[in-house]
């Protein structure tokens, strides 16, 4: 760029004329980044495992088969078997529902509570804003895992409680994002116009401020979904989540730890799976935020 004044048009200078393409579904798929297609595929498969595990894995995930302990991956057991002779593939497939539903509950808890706090803080302002946001600051100051552990110790162990604990730990990030969006949208002309035509505070908040604040929150929700799976697995690994013999992924890794030298697949397979799902969720979240930015 030879001229500094084209600051606002700098992006336009990198010209690239894409080849003309047909507006078909296949062409649209080709235009979609490969990594995004892969991410959707991973999440799709795992979601299908969670919904109908029986279609994917016939073996019993809980009952072991005698003399089939610690078999390395082969054609019969593609992920191998564990120390009790249970098929690891079946355990992973049947475990998906625990990790996914846990993550889902966690995101819903974080989203609802965080949005509520952020909305109130941003819309009312003043001392309410100060009070709520300082509370959020306190939440952020405590490490998320420590916070989750404290909550789970109050609530008691279990899949749902672990999910709630993880969700509460993510309230702060949701609240902050929603508040900043609400503060921005509240100053918009159309909100002023809504008040100007006699709108009352809560209806205007519900009709205009909330819907227009939520676009970027969807991106964060997808991101939190990934990290919730990681956190729930962490809690499971530490023994605060679902009790054995539930094939929850974190628990699978914890159990496999005992066989690290003899059965590498017991830790590697669920570990890689967790990583894949988290990365995929992150990739989808990036796509969401790109879309919402493109709209503006």
């Amino acid at each position, binding site marked *: *760029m*030879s*001229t*500094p*004044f*084209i*600051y*606002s*048009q700098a992006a*336009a*200078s*990198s*010209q*690239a*004329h*894409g080849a*003309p*393409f*047909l*507006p078909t579904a296949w*062409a649209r798929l080709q235009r979609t980044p490969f990594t995004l297609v892969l991410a959707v595929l991973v999440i799709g498969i795992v979601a299908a495992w969670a919904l109908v595990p029986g279609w994917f894995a016939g073996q019993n995930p809980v009952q072991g088969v005698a003399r089939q302990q610690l078999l390395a991956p082969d054609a019969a057991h593609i992920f191998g078997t564990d120390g009790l002779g249970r098929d690891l593939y079946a355990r992973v497939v049947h475990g998906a529902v625990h990790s996914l539903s846990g993550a889902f509950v966690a995101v819903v808890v974080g989203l609802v509570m965080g949005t509520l706090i952020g909305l109130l803080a941003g819309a009312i302002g003043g001392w309410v804003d100060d009070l709520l946001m300082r509370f959020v600051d306190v939440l952020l100051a405590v490490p998320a895992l420590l916070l989750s552990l404290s909550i789970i110790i109050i609530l008691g162990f279990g899949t749902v409680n672990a999910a709630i604990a993880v969700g509460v730990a993510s309230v702060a990030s949701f609240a902050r994002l929603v508040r900043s969006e609400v503060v921005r949208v509240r100053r*918009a*002309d*159309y909100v*002023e*116009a*809504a*008040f*100007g*035509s*006699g*709108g*009352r505070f809560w*209806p205007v908040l519900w*009709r*205009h401020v909330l*819907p*227009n604040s939520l676009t970027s929150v969807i991106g964060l929700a997808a991101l939190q979904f990934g990290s919730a799976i990681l956190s729930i697995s962490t809690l499971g690994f530490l023994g605060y989540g679902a009790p054995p013999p539930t094939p929850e992924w974190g628990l699978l890794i914890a159990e496999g730890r005992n066989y690290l030298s003899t059965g590498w697949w017991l830790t590697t397979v669920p570990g890689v799976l967790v990583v894949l799902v988290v990365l995929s969720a992150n990739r989808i979240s990036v796509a969401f935020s790109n879309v919402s930015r493109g709209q503006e």
Partner: protein
Amino acid sequence: MSILSLVKPTVLELENLHIAYTDHGHEQPVVHGVSLTVAAGEVVALVGESGSGKTTTAQAVIGLLADNGRLTQGTIRLNGEDITGWSQKQLDGIRGRVVSLIPQDPTSSLNPVQTVGRQIAEILKIHRHVARGDVADRVVELLARVGLSQPALRATQYPHELSGGMKQRVLIAIAIALQPALIIADEPTSALDVTVQRRILDLIDELRREFGTAVLMVTHDLGVAADRADRLVVLQGGRIQEQGRTAAVLADPQSRYTRRLLADAPSLALKNFRPAPAADLPADDAIVVTDLVHEFALSGRRDSFRAVDGISFRVRRGSTHAIVGESGSGKTTTVRDVVGFQKPTSGRISIDGVDVAGLRGEPLRQFRRKVQLVHQNPFTSLDPRQTVFRIIEEPLLNFEPVKAEERTRRVNEILQHVGLPASVLQRRARALSGGQRQRVAIARALILRPQVLVLDEAVSALDVTVQAQILALLETLQKTLGLTYLFISHDLSVVRQIADTVSVLQGGRQVDSGRVEDVFLRPGSDYTRELIAAIPGQANHDDELELFPETAASYRLLHATA
């Protein structure tokens, strides 16, 4: 003009230019065969509405089309050299040196984290125009040349420390730094106040005369084009409707489109004032503002800033009162006090006998049925997530319940009033044009059947033709519904057309007020005189007109020998 003007070399030559944008796989042609030339020292104005392809054409010249834009046909010759299809790298060599750009919006065109001095120095360094040691001196020299006071200080300041007009001067300094043969000015003054606009245009004119630079000016404002350009090129829908010498086009427009543009431009319209209101108007005042003062507390300081300082005016029911002033004059603060969005520090605002400043809570909400505000920018005043129907219907939901069929009936009724087809009801605001959006905003304001409509620069963001339509709509609505308007504007030519009475504000004070005719013909202050003089479209083409309709050559010859 000297005899030399006959042999001025052509700087820019566009021949049969076709440009298309690719949108979702479809190639949408937007410029269809534009041909024009710009000679050295000449100002050619590219005039048209938004969407006419004028900016696209100008961007193509400097190689700055958006990513999905493509030159499909035609040639661009700069100083005789064919630059069509040059790569960005090749173009980098000529941008700034041979052709440069003065962008539209000075606020977003400077890098906010660099001093303006560094930004000017950058172009000198890139093209190795002056020795490294002399760059700083040259920067100061350039800043002085574009008329900035204390140029050495300005060079060390950041963009946010300068006003809009000063930033535009900095951008002009960058544009002229290497004395290019051609300057493309893309709506260079649209974002500026009228008096600033005039000074900036004077500056461009002066520099052009001094360096003999050719100027391609892109503008939607026919008044500006009429004042400043030697030749006009009128574009519509990507096609040239007409081109010719400014005086000739203005005196005898050949195309119907040009005639409409000329008729719609408020600054060029017949300088008639609005006829005095009919005698049968009720004689009472709908709005009475007395000694309005509004102070803003300055953060971290004890004293405060007085944005509005003792303003008083009365508006008769069914008439239009205009508040005129430049940015910072306090007109927006006044309006927000009048509609009850904020409380004045002191003074009285009475609308229909109700004291607005005393209203709070529910009474204030009920008061809003009487007074409605139409915002300046129809692109931000409509909720992007709602359909037009929901937007217009919403005010009805705020007061006593109205049955669903009744609401639908009233929405349809008001839609007819503002001249929109029923088919827009299910669309969202982003699918509408600026003019349509402003009609939706007016419909939303009118559905509560208010008595006073406050229009905050309600036509400033619109094209002249659309502006003329909205102004005509406002006239009709006022007659049929007996509305009282408070019309805020920086554009005196619009005010002349629509208002009965006017207040001129400067720095929060009212420097002039009264009937529009009196204020225009006998301005009471220097500031008002300056504002009136700054209305574009007043340049005198009479001497050229006498020559019309002789051919351009003999015209030039006559001038050359004179």
